[in-house]
């Protein structure tokens, strides 16, 4: 946890099978489409059409990298949005890599620049570290002295906190900090704030006007948790 997702792959390299595999994985994680759609054949086809640049050659092997991954994911996203392949190929010849990347939800530079450490500190609050240490000690103790305690206390049954659980908890907590009930994040259409090209924040206008610093932090945290784990999002059924 910690890095906005695609950025961690900025020095990735691999062959055509790797790209298809990784691309499928990220299409699923970004909820663009099912990973099965992304095949080696499709990657080769996109390279033919000029949507992807020609790969670098190492002997007989074609080596793809970060730029190919970004273009591939963005192309699948735009295709899903209804763009014809030819138009995507044309657009890609005009757009810079940064502009293409900005179209993807998980790879927004402005979010990466956002003070992640301060917005996300509740996940790494020093008190939570202390608490983990205390609870793990307590769990050991209760096992050691189980003759005295009729059944292990609640913390002994608490599963280890995985990243996803922490994100889920943080989402719940931050939504409650915003005065919402716990649950999934629904997407609704509101007033549209264009944060960056292709990145919009929709927010109730009245709420926006009275938004304090703490609330803004809570919004940022909820957004971050949602972006970092697509499983926390629930999309409305298309009409």
């Amino acid at each position, binding site marked *: 946890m910690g890095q906005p997702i695609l950025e961690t792959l900025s020095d990735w390299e691999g062959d055509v099978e790797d790209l298809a595999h990784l691309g499928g994985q990220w299409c699923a994680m970004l909820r663009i489409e099912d990973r099965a759609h992304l095949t080696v054949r499709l990657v080769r086809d996109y390279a033919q059409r000029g949507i992807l640049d020609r790969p670098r050659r190492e002997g007989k092997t074609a080596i793809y990298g970060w730029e190919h991954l970004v273009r591939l994911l963005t192309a699948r996203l735009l295709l899903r949005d209804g763009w014809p392949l030819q138009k995507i190929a044309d657009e890609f010849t005009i757009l810079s890599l940064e502009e293409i990347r900005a179209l993807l939800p998980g790879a927004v530079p402005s979010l990466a620049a956002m003070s992640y450490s*301060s917005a996300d*500190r*509740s996940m790494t*609050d*020093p*008190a*939570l*570290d*202390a*608490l983990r*240490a*205390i*609870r793990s000690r*307590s769990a050991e*103790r*209760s096992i050691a002295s189980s003759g005295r*305690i009729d059944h292990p*206390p*609640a*913390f002994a049954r608490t599963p280890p906190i995985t990243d996803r659980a922490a994100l889920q*908890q*943080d989402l*719940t*907590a931050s939504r*409650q*900090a*915003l*005065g919402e009930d*716990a649950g999934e994040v629904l997407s609704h259409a509101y007033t549209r704030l264009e944060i960056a090209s292709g990145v919009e924040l929709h927010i109730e206008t009245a709420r926006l006007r009275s938004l*304090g610093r*703490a*609330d803004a*932090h809570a919004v940022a945290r909820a957004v971050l948790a949602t972006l970092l784990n697509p499983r926390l999002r629930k999309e409305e059924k298309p009409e």
Partner: protein
Amino acid sequence: MINLTITPQHAARLEGHDNELYALVRAVAAQNTPNAADGAEKPPLNLSIVIDRSGSMSGQPIEEAKRAAAFLVERLRPRDRVAIVTYADDAEVLVAGRSVGSGVEITNAIRSIETAGSTALHDGWMAGVEQAARMREPEQMGRVLLLSDGRANRGVYNPAILAQDAARIAATGITTTTCGLGAHFDELLMLEIAKAGQGSAYYGERAEDLIDPFREELELLSNLLARRLRLSLTAGEGIDLTVLNGYRQDSAFLILPDLAEGGEAWAMVRLRFSERTEQPADRLLLSALLDFETMNGEPLTAGPSRLRLPRLPAGAFAAIPVDDTVTARRNELRAADIQDQARVAARARHWPEVDRLIAEAKREAGDNMWVAESLDSLERIARRRDVEGFSKEAVFASQKMRSRLAASDDLAPSAWSASSESARAAYLRKKPTQGRRFDRTDDEDRR
């Protein structure tokens, strides 16, 4: 932002003798301290209310606890954050940390609390800490208000470990206040958690006395100006230094209570030194330095403040007036020590010794009306031969006398009266009976 001063009881060194000098080190908010009256500037509170709902709370106690918690929630600002945790066999997060907003949903949730089971105090407390950690901004403090009427009998209940946990968590900026209720809670355990947890320690004799601690805690939290006060004291060469308050220490620092508006955090020191040989005229007796944080987490320092006193021969020394405030605080500390002894005697059911100690404390109290009145309260409890009641009142009264946040405009000790105190902020009041609602009358007591 904080003025750090040293007030000696005698403003001189006695020439040619061994000296025993008492001095009061005081930390008071400077007049120009910002955000004192400016409510909008204050960061929101992050408060976890942890309520014991074990079987023994059933009936009036749980109803009063719910009323006190709802009272508190209704008085928080909409942007303050609160969590409600209950515990019995297990801890349950009833309301996860959230903005108070209108508060209606939270008070409704509080009303739904019902009693059952045992007392997993540690679980409940830790759940409260977790909620406070999740709801706060990194630079803000969090507070856990831990209520119990019983002895922890499930999970961790070793006082030394609980105190250690409290200190560890307090070091991360989440402090713990404890509130004991009735005759059966473990007063030393609850006091140790609060001391180590750098919060307040309260108790109520009866369920209806709970409202006072909740009100006091809210007033205190709403008026805090500085937190994490760490005092470092250095005595001059050849000077023996003792601090008499019993404050917890963090390596070389004494941990003073958080400073609230109109309050004074203080430490009483005893300096022993010889003036038999030739000492420099400007001999340095004591140097004090205070590290603290603003409520926004900004670290600041007050001082150093230094104590140097003129050297006088016996005749001139005797003519020097004695500082009344230092004398009064010394009386209170002395009364605290005697009350601790009386508590031990009461636990052993050695009532003649209890009576003797109270009489001794009364003599020593002199014209300190608050101490005298407090001792009267203890005497009434001693006459009932009520061991639990006596032990609790003695523990909390002595704690209050040792480490209370003093009012910076405290009256002369002989001028103390319940009515003059009632005009003060609750957290600065010198209550005559710690475990009793300030406005509870004797008539109510007799019913």
